[in-house]
Each structure stands twice: as structure tokens, then as C-alpha cells.
């Protein structure tokens, strides 16, 4: 059974519709990528999963229907979210940011803190640095770390490579792969960087103007004429 199952999701911002009947499925233990251009609705989709938008349709996570639930409850069911701009707490140090992430998982603080610091050793060195003074790459790590502090079963990551140097992207990819392989964490990422997504994910959805246009494994999509023409510029 899928860990996350979305059926006919519709999201409106005022009168404008951002998602048109989106359906997708994420199997337990998978890494799934949602690719698409600016404004496709990737962030809206992730926001909707954790209950940050007004939405209709069905979202079932781990057997629980999330449609009528509010964001804090959804998070405590076991969904960690690293949003697009991080939404970190700028005047708190790294460790304090992580501790806030543990708001609903206080018993596991020591264990999770160890796990995050092992994953990103630079954060342990800089654990008292305020995040407003950190580099983009460090902030991305804090953002992932904070999401992991809630002991999630599902990790949502919005454009993990946005604005990062190739070297840092590789580090982030390695960390995500490690979390998936070693801890069996299910991961959904969104990306505009199609190569990054295809290398990381086992399943890829293409989202355009609020609709799922294609889905498949990276190998299938790499040969899809539409993707090759639009995203690899051939």
C-alpha cells in the first residue's frame, strides 16, 4: 500500500486555481521527484500535503485522511517538510532551529540530533551560529535537519538544489540517498533541475501548469520525446 496517496487535489488561491485534479502515489521507502518549471505548482502541492492551503480532494497518509486536518496535526503524524525558502528562524542558532523541529518529538531529541549532526557535520561545528548569517547550503542543511527532528516517516523537500553550487548539490543528494537507504525514509522532492531529480528518484512526475503531465521511472522519462525536447533542449 502507498504511504501517501493523493486523489484529485484542487487548490485555489482566491479565484485562481493552482492545481487541477492532481493525483499521485508514493510507495513506502521510495524517493519520488516532482519536476516542473516555475509556477507549475510544485510548492503548492507540498504545502497542500501538510495542510497549508485551502484544498479539495483526498490526501491519505499512512491510512489517515488528511483532508480535514490542520498543519500542526499533520506534521505530528510523521511528515517532515523542508520548504522552498527554508523558513528557518533567523535569530536562532542552528541547534535551536533543530530543537524547534523536535517540538512534537521531544523524547527522541538526543537520537535525532545525533543523526542530523552525523549527516551534516558542519552543522555540529556551527551549532550556535544564527541561521541568518549562514550560507545557502548550510541553511538547506538546517532546513532538512529541522524536518528530520520530528522523526518523520515521509520527508518532503521543495527544490533542495535551488541556488546551490554543484558541489553542495551532490552533498545534499548523498544525504537524501543515505536517509532513504539506511533509514528507509520515504522522500518526495520537487525540482527544476531535471538531472538532479532523475539521478536521485525512483519515480518521477512531471507537473505543468497545475496538472500532472507525465509520470514514469527516470529511464522511461529520459527517452520521452516531450521531456527530451523541453527539458534537455535537444
Amino acid at each position: 500500500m502507498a504511504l501517501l496517496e493523493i486523489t484529485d487535489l484542487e487548490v485555489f488561491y482566491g479565484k485562481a486555481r493552482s492545481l487541477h485534479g492532481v493525483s499521485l502515489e508514493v510507495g513506502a521507502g521510495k524517493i519520488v521527484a516532482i519536476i516542473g518549471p516555475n509556477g507549475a505548482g510544485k510548492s503548492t502541492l507540498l504545502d497542500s500535503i501538510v495542510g497549508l492551503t485551502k484544498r479539495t480532494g483526498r490526501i491519505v497518509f499512512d491510512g489517515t485522511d488528511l483532508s480535514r486536518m490542520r498543519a500542526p496535526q499533520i506534521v505530528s503524524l510523521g511528515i517532515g517538510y523542508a520548504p522552498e525558502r527554508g523558513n528557518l528562524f533567523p535569530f536562532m542558532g542552528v541547534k535551536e532551529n533543530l530543537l524547534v523541529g523536535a517540538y512534537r518529538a521531544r523524547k527522541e531529541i538526543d537520537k535525532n540530533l545525533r543523526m542530523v549532526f552525523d549527516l551534516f557535520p558542519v552543522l555540529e561545528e556551527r551549532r550556535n551560529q544564527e541561521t541568518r548569517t549562514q550560507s545557502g547550503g548550510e541553511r538547506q542543511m538546517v532546513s532538512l535537519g529541522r524536518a528530520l527532528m520530528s522523526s518523520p516517516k515521509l520527508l518532503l523537500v521543495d527544490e533542495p538544489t535551488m541556488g546551490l553550487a554543484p558541489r553542495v548539490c551532490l552533498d545534499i543528494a548523498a544525504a537524501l540517498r543515505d536517509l532513504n537507504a539506511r533509514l528507509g525514509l520515504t522522500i518526495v522532492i520537487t525540482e527544476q533541475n531535471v538531472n538532479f531529480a532523475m539521478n536521485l528518484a525512483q519515480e518521477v512526475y512531471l507537473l505543468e501548469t497545475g496538472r500532472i503531465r507525465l509520470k514514469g521511472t527516470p529511464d522511461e522519462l529520459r527517452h520521452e520525446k516531450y521531456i527530451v525536447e523541453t527539458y534537455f533542449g535537444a
Partner: protein
Amino acid sequence: MLSQILIQGFLLSGLYGLLAVGFTMIFSVGRVLNLAFGANIMIGGYVYFALAQEAALPKLPSFIGAVLAGVAFGVVTYLILVRRFRDDPIAVEISTLILAVVMQALIVMIFSPAPRSMWPLLPGVAHIYGVAVSLNIVLATVVSWVVLGGLLVFVHKTHLGRAIRAVSMDPKGATISGIDPRQISLVTWGLSGALGAMAGVFLATYTQLDPGMWVFPLITAVAVVIVGGIGSIIGSLIAAHIIGFMETITTTVIAAELRGVFTMLLIIIVLLVVPKGLFGREEI
């Protein structure tokens, strides 16, 4: 005269710190100005008066009663008015100002418009470096500082306190960490109500009770917060000292009537030169 200024300035600043922090917390968490904060102060003073002087209860339970009344007033204001206008700060500000005026009318109906004098919390006079200060003011200052210190520890070292700061810095980030900003707002309004009521009791024993007593402390709280940078607890504490000392100096050296004028001048200068305040930021 120097030691007099130092001691009285320090004592006044503790009270202003209480006022300013109570006021600023609500802004940083909800980005709204609670103009009923003055009413909160007045309620603290009058509830203490009713319990300690009219019902002749002992002082400590009366004080606790006043603080609880402040908590209740803050929480009810949030639940009934503020939550409804969540996305509209102007509506919150207008409705809390109206609430303050209504509360003033209510107080006049219950207690009459005549000023009442309050007994000191602690009678007697102490001599500190040759300066005579009433023990009442010393007690108020000590309690203010203990409370403010406790509050700083609370917001930095506990999960709930960190959650309050988290909401003030990034509500979305807090929400996706499992924090409910509405719950945090409720807690903040309660806390702020407690601080306001406490300040009200102290203020009334410094001076006296009267139904217009909410205006001046509200202006002082706004002043401290503008000078300190709205939202910052530390900034508010430092600004409380700047204004506390400035008023003490004005009162001692120039004339008591002018102290408010210099505060206003300072506000205007700060607004012109550093609009975000001396320690400007909006988070706790």
C-alpha cells in the same frame, strides 16, 4: 542628586521594562498592536484594589488574583476580538482601542470616576546611598526583574518559549514544525495580560488609581517599543532604561511636568533617524 537619579531611574526602568515587554510580545507573535494593553494595566490595579482594600484579603492572594484577572482579560480579548480579525491588523488595533475605552467606562461605573489611593505593597522607606526610596518601589522593582529574568529564561530554554520565538520569526516554519500559531498566540496574550496586570498593580501603588490611568502607560509602552525596536525583548529592556532614566533626569533636574514631552521628542527623533528602532527587528 546623582545617586538619586541613578536609583530612581533604575527603579522606574524596571517597571517600564515590564510594560514594554508585555506589549511587545503580542506584536512580535501576531504582528498586531494591542491597544487594550492599557486596559489590562488598569484592570490589574483595580482588581488588586477590590481584593486587597475593599474585600480586605491578604496582599499576596490579591496580587495573584490581579495577575489572573490580567491573564483572563488577555485571553478573552484574543478569543473574542483578535482571532476574528486575524488577517487585519488595523481592525485589531481599532477594536482593542474601543475595548480599552469600554473598560474605562466599566471601571467608572463600578468604582466611580474618583481617583483612589492604594496602600503600598510594602510600607516603609529604605535609604540606599543616602537616597530615600519607599520599600514599595524597591519590592516592585525586584519583582519586575525576577519576572523579566524568568521570562527571558522561559523563551530561550523551554520548548514552549522557543515555540513563541519561532512563531514570531517565521510562522510557516513554526507551523511545519508542529507548532500551532493560534495556541501560541493564546499563550502570548495570557502572558502579556499577566505582565500588564502586574505593572498595573505596581503603577497604582506608585501613584494612584483612576479610570484614565491606562493612557499614560500605554503611551510609555509604545514609546519604549518604538525606541527599542518593535518586538525585541532585549531591545525593549534597554529602551525601558533609556526612557526611565530620561524621565527621572527630567523630573529631578528640570520639571516633573516635562517628562512626557522629552519622551515624545525622543520617539520623534528615533522615528526620523532609525525608524526600525535602536535594536530594530520584529522578532522576540
